[in-house]
């Protein structure tokens, strides 16, 4: 290409101190195609940009090379500058003389020599650049929130309040999530339901929020701004429009053996049920694995008692296809299985419980109506032992390597509540470290110790041994006293680790959003883009991204909502033009490129191809440039070189290689 301009920046003395800028200009002039070369103190300054623009106009430059700082810093600046001067922004290349040359080399001669080579490589590349135009894609002004817990509800409310439609897809029959199961919340001891229920009602009543409860994501296609999602609405066997939520059906249902999911399996629920009294929507579902009518065809009691005529045993799953501009993942967490931690005797004794189970026991609407009692014999416990870090901070073979973050605080809460309500109960907490970073958190923990007399012991529990008399012998250690402890307890509460909801794996795959080794969703940048997934248009809210408590979840939910609103506020999105581009004439249609594409951007079509006069139908690869992110995996997989990457083409990179090795 003829008509290349080279602009070498001094960057004050940042570059000029170790690179002989004049020499770079002089050497650049000798390169084929270069018609203009100059230097300036600060190319990125207004005056510097003006010089570039002037040169482009006056010398009718076809491509420019700016030898300056990292392209990560000012590539966008110079592209804009070129565009203003009438040059396609993709006809700009940057030679990184600052970060990758002048700042790391001390010797002027050495620095200059390298700078010349870097400039040469950029010139070689730009001479093969082609004008690229970003494509445009439309934005569907609706968001999808996957998960109806506090994270999902808050995100949805914030988006809806900003004026955009939101759908919430929740797999259980009601929104509310784990927070609905909690009794009180730290560090203020508010009643969880009291602060959550109004939000649930708000979400249900919001004109721009649409709830898909008892529903799951079936399929996701499309890309940022234009996702198409299939939602499976599972058969409720209850007509939502007719049901009045009177609850007679649940009373009358003869099949009451199912374990209540909401009460952590501590008591039973009928086959037709709402998870809890304040469920939203307040419409029951029939559990087909429990319902006698659905299993054997006999029964039908609920139908008889339903005055609204809402029962419909013939309902089938329904697939709804909806379009969205953005998707928020808020799939939440579960408590880990304790199979690998048998020493705590969780499976052997009913009186060894998890903290979440304790929440239900403490809750007035729970299986014990809020009375603290042993599940084995209903007696009031006198000695309770709490064990921290059960399955958290563990070797991979035992549990999770991470800290679950919320346990220290909720254990302090539980201990405090028990001592408050039952002052005669001895509470011992075995801890490894007490971690309380957060506003009023350490104060809260100190109150548990100082005001409520909770006995904190530094040391882990080795074993919980159920005794013949029904008590539990806890083998622990007090590392500070250097004493082994054997405590006879009536109840042991395990602070079991949290893990991302198992459903997230499937969802992440559908969204092509990446997950880490612990199944937490990966953020686009751990610090600077913590609520975005690396996949454009997919955002993260709540524990699906990493362990967090309620206030953190709510603030992250809001942050995700803002990101979504920022996206939905746009009418059109510009797509990156540096995408893969196949040469139809050469394509074998073998399918290997689609195999490595992380975005599903490649498909195959049978097309009539005119290959130098030979017309035939061939299967060829087609790239959806709106989906393609330009990684280039396909270009290397393709043996014939049919696939090339615009902006980083084979010939461009080879030209750089040649220039460097010259």
């Amino acid at each position, binding site marked *: 290409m003829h008509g290349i301009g080279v602009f070498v920046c001094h960057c004050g003395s940042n570059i000029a101190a170790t690179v002989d800028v004049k020499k770079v200009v002089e050497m650049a002039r000798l390169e084929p195609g270069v018609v203009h070369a100059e230097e300036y103190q600060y190319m990125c300054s207004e005056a510097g940009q003006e010089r570039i623009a002037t040169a482009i106009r006056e010398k009718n430059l076809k491509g420019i090379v700016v030898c300056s700082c990292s392209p990560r810093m000012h590539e966008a600046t110079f592209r804009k500058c070129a565009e203003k001067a009438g040059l396609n922004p993709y006809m700009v290349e940057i030679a990184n003389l600052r970060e990758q040359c002048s700042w790391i080399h001390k010797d002027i001669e050495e620095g200059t020599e390298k700078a010349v080579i870097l400039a040469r490589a950029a010139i070689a590349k730009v001479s093969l650049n082609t004008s690229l135009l970003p494509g445009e894609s439309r934005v569907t002004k609706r968001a999808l929130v996957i998960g109806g817990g506090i994270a999902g509800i808050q995100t949805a409310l914030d988006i809806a309040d900003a004026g955009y439609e939101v759908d919430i897809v929740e797999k259980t029959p009601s929104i509310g999530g784990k927070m609905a199961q909690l009794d009180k919340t730290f560090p203020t001891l508010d009643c969880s339901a009291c602060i959550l229920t109004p939000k649930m009602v708000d979400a249900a009543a919001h004109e721009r929020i649409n709830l898909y409860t008892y529903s799951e994501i079936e399929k996701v296609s499309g890309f940022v701004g234009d996702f198409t999602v299939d939602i499976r609405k599972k058969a409720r066997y209850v007509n939502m429009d007719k049901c009045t939520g009177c609850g007679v059906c649940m009373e009358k249902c003869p099949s009451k053996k199912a374990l209540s999911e909401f009460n952590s399996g501590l008591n039973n629920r009928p086959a037709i049920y709402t998870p809890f009294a304040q469920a939203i929507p307040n419409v029951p579902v029939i559990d087909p694995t429990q319902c006698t009518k659905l299993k054997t065809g006999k029964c039908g009691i609920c139908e008889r008692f339903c005055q609204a005529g809402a029962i419909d045993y013939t309902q089938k799953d329904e697939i709804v296809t909806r379009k969205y501009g953005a998707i928020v993942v808020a799939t939440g967490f579960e408590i880990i299985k304790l199979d690998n931690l048998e020493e705590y005797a969780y499976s052997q004794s009913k009186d060894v419980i998890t903290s979440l189970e304790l929440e239900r026991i403490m809750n007035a609407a729970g299986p014990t109506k809020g009375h603290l009692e042993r599940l084995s014999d209903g007696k009031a416990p006198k000695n309770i032992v709490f064990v921290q870090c059960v399955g958290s901070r563990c070797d991979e073979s035992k549990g999770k390597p991470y800290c679950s973050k919320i346990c220290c605080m909720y254990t302090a809460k539980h201990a405090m509540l028990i001592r408050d309500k039952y002052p005669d109960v001895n509470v011992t907490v075995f801890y490894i470290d007490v971690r309380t970073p957060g506003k009023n958190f350490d104060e809260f923990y100190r109150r548990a110790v100082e005001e409520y007399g909770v006995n904190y012991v530094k040391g882990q529990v080795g074993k919980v041994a159920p005794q013949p008399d029904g008590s539990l012998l806890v083998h622990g250690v007090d590392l500070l006293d250097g004493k082994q402890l054997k405590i006879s307890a009536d109840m042991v509460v395990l602070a079991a680790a949290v893990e991302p909801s198992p459903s997230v794996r499937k969802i992440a795959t559908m969204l092509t959003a990446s997950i880490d080794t612990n199944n937490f969703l990966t953020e686009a940048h751990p610090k600077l883009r913590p609520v975005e997934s690396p996949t454009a248009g997919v955002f993260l809210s709540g524990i699906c991204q990493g362990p967090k408590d309620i206030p953190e979840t709510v603030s992250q939910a809001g942050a995700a909502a803002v990101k979504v609103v920022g996206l939905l506020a746009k009418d059109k999105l510009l797509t990156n033009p540096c995408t893969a581009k196949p040469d139809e004439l050469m394509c074998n249609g073998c399918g290997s490129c689609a195999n490595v594409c992380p975005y599903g951007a490649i498909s195959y079509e049978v097309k009539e191809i005119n290959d*130098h*006069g*030979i017309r035939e139908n061939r299967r060829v690869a087609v790239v959806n440039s709106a989906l393609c992110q330009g990684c280039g995996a396909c270009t290397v997989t393709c043996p014939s070189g049919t696939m090339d990457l615009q902006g980083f083409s084979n010939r461009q990179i080879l030209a750089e290689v040649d220039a460097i090795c010259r």
Partner: protein
Amino acid sequence: MKKITKKDLAALLRFIGENEALYIPGRVSGQTNYVRYNENTDVDLDTLKTVKSAKEVFFPQSETLYTVKTEDGKYRISQEELQNEEFVLFGVKACDMKGIEVLDKVFLSEPVDTFYKARREKGTIVTMACGEPEESCFCKVFGIDCAEPQGDVTLWNFGNEYFWKANTEKGEALTEKCSSFLKDGDEATVDAIKNAIRTVVEKLPYMNLSLEGWDGTKTEEKFNSPVWEELYKPCLACGTCTFVCPTCQCYDIKDYNTGKGVQRYRCWDSCMYSDFTMMAHGNNRTSQLQRYRQRFMHKLVYFPANNDGMYSCVGCGRCVDKCPASTNIVKVIKAFQKEGK
């Protein structure tokens, strides 16, 4: 007529090789090709056919023509020097010798190829009669007598000796130079050797191959024959036949970017390749059938038509031996023969 005992041959070769470049069939990893002689060369005069023919000594597979370099933004062109030293090519069989004559027709007629011409002038060719012709040989069909090859010097292999006869001035000069290694030999023995070879040749399976109808005429008829449609089908479009052929003379001229400049070089090309004669507008032969046909039409029709009936096939049988799909010029000739009946 001279002769040399086989045990003296090594010394002779060393003697020649010390004074000038010597190209001779040598074995590298199981295959025999012409190699530049040095002390470590595994000389192999027993293998009847080298994989590549002797043509590459005069017309190398690739050679640089000139180099362009940039210095301070200016271009400097330096032409490749012509062959300026004498050399000896040793052990050429009759078919390859004839092949060189075919190349002479192409490269020594106007416009003369100076690179080729210089090599021909500086080279002395020592040919060798074929001891044991093989089943794929059919040089006799093209009127070549493998018992008495041309060249500057001709050798006959007999028992413990090679008989040596100079045919040209260059040959005499080489004989003179090597005289200390040579003794006098008798014509009669050589005549007997020749007769023995000719008797064997008569027994070869391809001896009855007829070139009737391949006289450089009936171009259209041959070109349009339906026979090609079946003949080309096994062809894989590789360049094996062309690259082992002693007469194929097509080349491509390409540029190589050395980073410091450009080297313009020429290299053998094959009419079997899809980019052969590729031009800006595309290719004038778009199918393998056309490419396949081109090769044989050139050898058997176009070349004789333009060169007083000289075929550009010498019956060496290398393509018969080496074609991966076992298609070859003999099968082409036979197919037309059959069609003619």
